[in-house]
């Protein structure tokens, strides 16, 4: 269905993470924002780039550690060709880490820890809110 729709006119989010569990949780958070028409998923950087060639995305949530093409490589490519705002969602990119410096240099628009604590509603809530807040700031 993705190809037929006129995706350029819609507001789209791309979630890039090799863990389906993580994509499910991120998708849930983005859905709660109720701001986007389409939420697409990709399980590595390569698939993400393919999807980016076919449609316009406003926000990309990008994991770092992924097979085939990792987030840092993907970010480098994305910055060469796309305007989408990229939020790095990774525990590797904690503030002050080498990764955090590198992704900033490559042009990441935001860095955030992975959402966590599915079992703990308050913690899940808090982490979810942080991400929602960041997305709202960027669009």
């Amino acid at each position, binding site marked *: 269905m993705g190809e037929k729709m006129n995706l350029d006119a819609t507001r789209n989010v791309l979630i890039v993470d090799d863990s389906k569990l993580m994509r499910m949780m991120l998708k849930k958070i983005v859905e709660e924002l109720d701001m986007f028409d389409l939420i697409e998923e990709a399980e590595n950087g390569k698939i993400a780039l393919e999807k980016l060639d076919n449609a316009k995305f406003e926000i990309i949530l990008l994991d770092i550690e992924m097979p085939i093409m990792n987030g840092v490589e993907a970010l480098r490519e994305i910055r060469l060709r796309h305007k989408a705002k990229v939020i790095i969602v990774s525990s*590797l990119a904690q503030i002050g880490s080498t990764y955090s410096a590198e992704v900033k240099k490559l042009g990441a628009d935001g860095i955030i820890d992975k959402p966590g604590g599915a079992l703990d509603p308050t913690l899940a809530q808090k982490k979810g809110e942080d991400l929602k807040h960041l997305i709202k700031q960027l669009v």
Partner: protein
Amino acid sequence: MDDEFLDEIWGQFESEALEHCKNCEDLLLDSANKDLSKAEIDSIFRSFHSLKGLTGSIGFSETVTLTHLAEDLISESRKGTITLDDKLRTALLNFTDVLKTILQKSIKERKEVITKNFGPCKSVLEEILQGKSSKIKERNRVLNFDDTIVSETLNDLDLIEEERFTQVSSTSLDDLFQKSGTLISRANALKRAFEQVGSAPENDYANVILEKLVNDIQVVNGRITDLRLISVNGLVRRLKRAAIDTSRSLKKTIKFNVKGDNERADRSIIRALADPLMHMIRNSIDHGIEESKDRPKKGIGKINLSFQKEGDNLVIKLSDDGRGLDKEKILKKAIEKKFISTSNPKELEERDIYSLIFKPGFSTAENVSSTSGRGVGMDVVEKNIALLGGKIEIYSEKNKGANFSILIPGAVSTEECIILKDLPTFYAVPSRSVQWVKNKSDLETDIVTGTEHIRYNKSQIPIQNLNKLLSLPSSNSEGFVEKIILLSLSDKAIAINYFGDFIYDEFVFDQPDKLISNLPFVSGTTVDDDRNIIFRLNVERLFDYDDQAA
């Protein structure tokens, strides 16, 4: 969050976490035998990293401290600040075991459950990370590193895994399976009967229904087969583990090679094979492989294990390149223990001598070592294999090593076959090895060195007669069309001629009984609806024979 979403989250969490555990285990076990490639190192790091991410995102606040430690360790080892040596490998393997218990209990309870092996596991990881390696040695002895304790943990895991399944008695499963096999034969017979009636328009509807029915039966049969068959992969992982533990405790460096670990077999067979194989591998490392100073030219001790399906049989081969079985020693011991009389031991054939080690109470090691002498002897190995209806053979050469070949019949399944009606005998050939069957009159043949050949893939294949090949008297050819069947296995081909018809069918084959098992190329028998006996040809063996003849 709604319940349905939570259910999904738990399910996804379980499958991803277990998948990463498995990947970690496989690669850690591989790393004992070879240097991991960069891609493999990245993959193992990613799995450890994902385990931390997964346990964190599900909200296991205690467990995440453990997965964090493991990630740090593998990360340090990727950077080269810690070597992935036996100690670290064992600690990380132990970590995956502990993690699996925690995962399985937690997933069942729907909350984080910390098991009692959590603490010790964590402190070992911490200590390695801090480089206080000297203290660990002593603790290793208590902590799972002794293989009796390891096997306890594994058994625990087995139990937990079993809880996730509904138990069905294997006899009723067998019965169901047999019935479903018969059902397929019946459906095929019905189909043929319909074909003979001809395709009158009034039969169209019935034909469609019949087609669907046959398909459904095949699907059901496939599912039932699947219920019974599991991959040997899990078993292989346990065996690799046992090999590593044994080689370490004996301070022998070995390379453990496994082939065919994706073969599948009946779950009861796989379960029953675990102990015998474990014991045999320990034996090979303990008694077969020499101390490195005693094998200066041979280098690292090599142990090869392979699983191969031959027809309905599972063939397991275990070999080492050690000192081989000592005939003299075995004989001496057997006489001592009065297993044989002293009168004429020289008359015994080599394989009879080797099979003496299967006698209860036999043990050649002067001092029963703590590794292989665990009360389970080769007698138990043979007994367990015999209980499966299998047999074990030994071939050994001094200073070259020992080879064990185990044949387990009936990793059963229905098989699609082409039945050659070479009256009065029917032969079944598995259709996967058949390229085509053609009337000989339609083929161009050439005479090469007095033998008729057909052309296939730019090469000349000699035509061999079915009955001659099977050393049987030639069949009645009068009034029958001569046919050529072309069999292929990898890049080799055999052309066989016979006189008669052929049909497609599916059967469950029985083991040939004693009388028939003397026929070298027959690997199974069955009976069709008209009570004709059908012999299943062992195509693999035909090719072996063809190779030798060439």
